């Protein structure tokens, strides 16, 4: 029946880059716990968390080490037990310095952590109130795991009574990444549990899970998991990039367009990623803060990694074929944090994992010749927001910031469809980012 129906998708723009989802999504590898983690204090959108531990303190796995500061903020927790080695600046994956807490574990701490992982206990969540759910989500530092890392509790509590529908993003439209696919296949029950808790927190009873049709196993797993839940529906969507963007996804599943500059709540929707749904379940039902996440390391597999682990050490331990030759980074290979469309270059591969990292991929250098814009309109056709990227690029190049704002630069979701489709290989997105940066800096 499903295959007979016309598959849903969003209306304007969109592209079909090669999927290359070759990293196996049928298994999630759990590496040995690290002996040292570097936990950044700002791993979310909003204000940096304030540390509540000092050098020399002993912390246990899951203990809060930094408190949220301000309305849009989230606390961070220790991902392993151990002694606080330092509180100060540390080099991030992007090669910048940021405030972090370094925790170093002894042998006893390691054994205690392994015991704690084995002794998971599911709490009864039948009689929990919506306020308690949101409080527990906030307390556990759950943030959006789709990439934007917006604090989940703020999203749920600010929805108020305007929410009508919960939209769960299982699209994973970004090529090469398979971490959401893996979570959907392996932990469908936990996702459905998280959705039920979020529905309760929003005081509504309808949720839609949107999954692209190139992930049949995930569709099957989630359909089975929510077969007995009348309010939760799984919708297969026609694969098209960037379907995972919340504006595109809301259009695809409801047919409603979110006005410029507005959030999905303006059309009665709350959008959350599948990973977030699972984190919500673990926070409320198991009491486990967000201290682990599933990360795709391209070619090596999907890993359940504790936050703050050195990404380079994991790759070193599992890379048997020499796919990630760190010495060759300067030459041929570049490492990317995220997917190939929206990811950012990694400057320091030994930097710590944060809540927002969905994948690590390696790409070969492409030395494209930038040619003049021929006004072909490819970028305009590809833009899912209906903007005119070629115009914004030229505004950015000439520093015409007011004009760029007028032309809707702030509506750009930075999906990169314009740069991808440009036959002249122009760096359109870079200039639009520059426009946005300058508009916000004003």
């Amino acid at each position: 029946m499903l295959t007979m129906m016309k598959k849903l998708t969003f209306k304007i723009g969109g592209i079909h880059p090669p999927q290359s989802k070759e990293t196996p999504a049928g298994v999630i590898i759990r590496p040995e716990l690290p002996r040292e983690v570097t936990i950044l204090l700002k791993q979310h959108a909003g204000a940096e968390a304030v540390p509540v531990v000092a050098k020399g303190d002993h912390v246990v796995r899951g203990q809060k080490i930094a408190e949220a500061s301000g309305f849009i903020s989230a606390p961070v927790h220790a991902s392993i037990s151990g002694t606080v080695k330092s509180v100060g600046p540390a080099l991030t994956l992007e090669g910048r310095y940021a405030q972090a807490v370094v925790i170093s574990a002894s042998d006893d701490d390691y054994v205690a952590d392994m015991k704690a992982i084995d002794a998971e206990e599911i709490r009864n969540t039948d009689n929990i109130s919506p306020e308690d759910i949101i409080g527990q989500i906030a307390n556990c530092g759950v943030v959006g795991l789709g990439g934007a890392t917006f604090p989940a509790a703020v999203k749920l509590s600010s929805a108020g009574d305007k929410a009508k529908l919960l939209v769960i993003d299982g699209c994973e439209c970004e090529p090469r990444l398979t971490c959401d696919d893996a979570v959907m296949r392996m932990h469908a029950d936990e996702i459905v549990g998280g959705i039920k808790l979020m529905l309760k927190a929003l005081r509504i009873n309808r949720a839609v899970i949107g999954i692209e049709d190139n992930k049949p196993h995930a569709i099957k797993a989630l359909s089975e998991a929510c077969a007995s839940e009348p309010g939760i529906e799984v919708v297969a969507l026609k694969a098209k990039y960037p379907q995972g963007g919340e504006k595109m996804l809301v259009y695809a599943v409801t047919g409603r367009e979110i006005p410029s500059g507005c959030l999905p709540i303006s059309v009665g929707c709350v959008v959350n990623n599948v990973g977030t749904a699972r984190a919500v379940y673990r926070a409320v039902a198991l009491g486990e803060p967000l201290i682990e996440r599933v990360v795709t390391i391209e070619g090596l597999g999907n890993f359940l990694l504790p936050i703050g682990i050195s990404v380079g050490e994991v790759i070193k331990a599992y890379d048997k074929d020499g796919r990630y030759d760190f010495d060759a980074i300067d030459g041929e290979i570049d490492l990317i944090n995220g997917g190939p469309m929206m990811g950012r270059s990694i400057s320091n591969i030994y930097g710590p994992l944060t809540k927002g990292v969905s994948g690590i991929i390696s790409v070969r250098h492409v030395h494209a010749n930038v040619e003049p814009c021929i006004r072909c309109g490819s970028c305009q056709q590809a833009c899912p927001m209906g903007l005119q990227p070629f115009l914004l690029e030229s505004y950015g190049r000439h520093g015409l910031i007011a004009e760029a704002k007028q032309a809707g630069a702030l509506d750009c979701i930075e999906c990169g469809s314009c740069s991808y489709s440009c036959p002249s290989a122009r760096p359109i997105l870079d200039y639009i980012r520059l426009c946005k940066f300058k508009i916000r800096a004003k």
Partner: protein
Amino acid sequence: MSIIASTALLGGIGAVGSVVLFLVAKKFHVDEDSRVALIEEELPGANCGGCGCKGCRDFAECCVKAGSLSGLYCPVGGEQVMAKIAGILGVDSSAATAKVATVKCAGTPETKTPGGAVYQGPSVCSIKAMQAGDYECQDACLGCGDCVRVCQFSAIAISDETALPVVDLSRCAGCGQCVVACPRHIIEVIPAGVRYTVACSNCMKGAVARKQCSVACIACGKCVKACPCGAIQIVDNHAYIDQSKCEACGKCIDLCPTHAIRRQC
């Protein structure tokens, strides 16, 4: 008859119009300092913007308004023109000095520690500055030449050897366009002539700065103690020389352990 009527009508309109124009001109009369026009006449009229003003007339107005010539200099006319302007205004012309741009970074690819990734985006500093760049130092010159592109005097160029902008002092007008264009804020306009500057803008603490670049200022403070005129301060973990106080004695340059202080002549 009709000729007389039309002549009278036109004459009447003309008379009324001239009275209105006369009254309007009286009412909205702007008292302009006659010296502005005199100074404008002396200026080269290139409207290049090299002085930092919008054009030659704007510069003339600035001169008259300011009353003294400190900080004002016409790079095209040079000292001759400035002396004439000083004559018109009846002020001392010695306050008018030439200014040049200086780059407060001396990190070459040999001295800077690579960051690990290679930047692949467009060769534009303002875009590159949104990312971490090729090197660990987050205050170093990005080397993509935003300053070169905005310079109207072809006075700045990226050196092939050091990948740093080099200012041609004979051409630089000190207009400050490059100061505005640099996203890392490492260009400063200073008086021309023999001058000492700290060629580093690194904001990290000494030990970190040293690791990031071998010619970074480590804020040791030796120059601050040695300066007889109190012109040097440590700001944001690097030394800064206040050019208005500096007497260019040069006592600081040999003391600097990382050779971050440079001499400009």
